[in-house]
C-alpha cells in the first residue's frame, strides 16, 4: 500500500521564508499539482493502491477540482489546523501513525519508474537514505538546542552515541513496525507541545527535519530497530536522486527534494514528463486548474520546446543504451564559442525563455569543446581512456555513465547538444 499526504495549511499560508511551504515550496503552485499528479500516477503503475491523506481543502482541490486519481482519499488532517503552519512534516507523521497495515509513504515530489525491492520495503523500517552528519542538522541543532525547553531523550542519546548527527531521509519511508511510527508521532507531538511557547524565537520550519528524520532515527536506534535504506551513499545535495535528465530510461527514481522545487529546469521536466506519460491527465488538470483559478498561466512551455522534449523522451526510451552511446551529438547551430585565450565562453539560447545565455567553460563544461564536430559518447570515452591517468580512475563503463549524464543534461535541459537524426522523428 502506497500512502501520500497533503496538508493545505502551509500550502495556502503566504510566506517567502525558505523553510515555509507556501505553494508546497515550489517555484509556482501549478508545479505542486503537476508533481502530485505525476507522483500518484507513477506509483499507480507499480502498486495497486495509492491513497492520499489530506484535509478538507486538500480534498476539495485535489479530488473535486483536479480529480487526481488516488485510489482513496482520507480526510484526516483537519485536526492539525491548530498547529503552526511551518510544521509541514507533522501531517506526514500523523499519516504514518494512522496506518494499520505495513505501508510505504512517498512524498508527492517522488517519482518512480520501477517497483521498490521487496527485500527493503518488507523490513520493520525502511527509508530513502541515511543522512549521516549532513551539515544542515548541526546548524539546526546549534540554533534550537539553545532555546527549546524539552528535547526527547533519544536525541540526546543519539548525539552522544554517534558523536555526530545521524538521521534518515523520509522522502520514502515505511515498513512493518507500526508501533514505531505511533511512538514517533507521540514523541514529536510532545516535542512540539512542550516547546510551542518558544516558537517565536526559532525558525520553526527547520524543526521538521529534527522531529521527523533525526528523532525517527534516534528512536529506532534506542530500540535497536535496523533502518534499511533504499539508496546508499547519498550526498547532501542529493545529486544521485535528482537526475531528471535521465529519468525513465536510465534512472528509475527521482526526488525533487528541497530547493530542486525552485529550479525552473526541474519544474519544466515535471510538467513535460506528465504531458509525455499521461497526456489526458495533464490536459485535464491544466484545464481544471486554470478554469477554477487555482493558478494563472506562467512559465508556459513553448510548442517548439514541447516538441523537442517529447521527441527526446521518446527516443531515449525507445532505444537501447548502447544505441544512445553510439549516436553522434553535435553543438546546436545557435551555440557560439568565444575563445578569449585562457577563458572560453559559449553563448546559447536558453530554451525555457529564448534568452541568450552565457556559459564560461569551467571544469567538466570544457567537454563541450569536443563536440564541435559530431561525436558519440562512446567515441569520446575511447578518446579519454587513451589517457593513462583517466583510465586509472575510471573503468570504461563508469566513464560512459558519467559522459552520458553530462551529454543528456546539456541536451535535454539546455538544447546545447543535438543528437543526429533524432529530431526528424515525428511523434
Amino acid at each position, binding site marked *: 500500500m502506497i500512502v501520500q499526504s497533503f496538508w493545505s495549511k502551509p500550502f495556502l499560508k503566504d510566506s517567502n521564508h525558505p523553510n515555509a511551504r507556501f505553494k508546497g515550496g515550489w517555484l509556482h503552485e501549478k508545479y505542486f499539482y503537476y508533481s502530485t499528479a505525476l507522483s500518484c500516477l507513477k506509483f499507480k503503475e507499480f502498486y495497486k493502491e495509492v491513497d492520499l491523506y489530506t484535509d478538507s481543502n486538500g480534498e476539495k482541490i485535489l479530488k473535486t477540482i483536479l480529480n487526481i486519481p488516488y485510489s482513496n482519499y482520507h480526510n484526516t488532517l483537519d485536526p492539525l489546523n491548530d498547529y503552526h503552519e511551518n510544521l509541514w512534516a507533522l501531517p506526514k507523521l500523523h499519516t504514518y501513525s494512522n496506518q494499520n497495515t505495513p505501508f510505504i509513504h512517498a512524498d508527492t515530489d517522488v517519482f518512480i519508474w520501477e517497483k521498490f525491492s521487496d527485500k527493503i520495503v518488507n523490513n520493520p523500517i525502511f527509508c530513502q537514505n541515511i543522512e549521516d552528519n549532513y551539515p544542515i542538522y548541526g546548524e539546526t541543532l546549534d540554533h534550537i538546542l539553545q532555546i527549546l525547553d524539552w528535547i526527547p531523550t533519544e536525541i540526546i542519546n543519539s548525539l552522544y552515541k554517534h558523536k555526530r548527527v545521524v538521521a534518515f531521509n523520509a522522502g520514502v519511508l515505511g515498513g512493518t513496525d507500526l508501533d514505531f511510527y505511533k511512538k514517533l508521532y507521540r514523541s514529536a507531538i510532545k516535542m512540539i507541545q512542550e516547546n510551542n511557547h518558544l516558537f517565536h524565537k526559532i525558525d520553526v520550519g527547520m524543526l521538521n527535519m529534527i522531529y521527523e528524520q533525526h528523532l525517527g532515527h534516534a528512536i529506532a536506534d534506542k530500540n535497536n530497530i535496523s533502518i534499511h535504506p533504499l539508496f546508499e551513499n547519498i550526498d547532501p545535495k542529493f545529486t544521485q536522486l*535528482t537526475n531528471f535528465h535521465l529519468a525513465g530510461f536510465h534512472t528509475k527514481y527521482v*526526488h525533487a527534494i528541497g530547493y530542486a522545487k525552485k529550479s525552473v529546469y526541474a519544474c519544466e521536466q515535471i510538467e513535460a514528463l506528465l504531458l509525455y506519460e499521461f497526456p489526458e491527465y495533464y490536459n485535464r488538470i491544466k484545464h481544471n486548474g486554470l478554469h477554477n483559478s487555482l493558478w494563472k498561466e506562467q512559465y508556459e512551455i513553448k510548442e517548439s520546446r514541447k516538441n523537442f522534449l517529447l521527441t527526446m523522451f521518446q527516443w531515449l526510451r525507445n532505444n537501447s543504451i548502447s544505441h544512445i552511446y553510439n549516436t553522434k551529438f553535435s553543438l546546436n547551430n545557435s551555440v557560439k564559442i568565444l575563445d578569449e585565450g585562457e577563458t572560453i565562453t559559449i553563448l546559447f539560447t536558453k530554451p525555457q525563455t529564448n534568452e541568450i545565455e552565457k556559459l564560461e567553460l569551467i571544469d567538466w563544461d570544457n567537454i563541450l569543446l569536443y563536440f564541435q564536430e559530431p561525436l558519440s559518447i562512446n567515441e569520446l570515452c575511447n578518446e579519454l581512456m587513451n589517457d593513462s591517468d583517466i583510465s586509472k*580512475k575510471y573503468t570504461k563503463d563508469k566513464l560512459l555513465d558519467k559522459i552520458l549524464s553530462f551529454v543528456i543534461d546539456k541536451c535535454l535541459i539546455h538544447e546545447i547538444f543535438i543528437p543526429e537524426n533524432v529530431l526528424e522523428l515525428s511523434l
Partner: protein
Amino acid sequence: MKNDFLKRVKGALLSKEEAKTISGGYDHSYDYKCFFVCCPGGASGSPVINVNGCSDTRYKYYAPQFASGYCVDCS
C-alpha cells in the same frame, strides 16, 4: 586541438564531480561551515574564535564528542 581540450578537462575529470544542472538539498538560512553544536553551560576547554573562518564571534570550545570538534558557548 584535442590535446588542448584534454588539458582543459583532465583535472576536472580526475578530481571533481560533474556539476549537474539540477540538484536538491535542504533549504536553509545558515552558512554550512558555521555549524557548532551548542554546549550546556560549564563546557571547558580553550576558547577558539572564528573557527573555519566563520563570522560568528561566540566562543567555541573544543568538544570532540561533536562532529565539528567544537561547540558554541550558549551563555
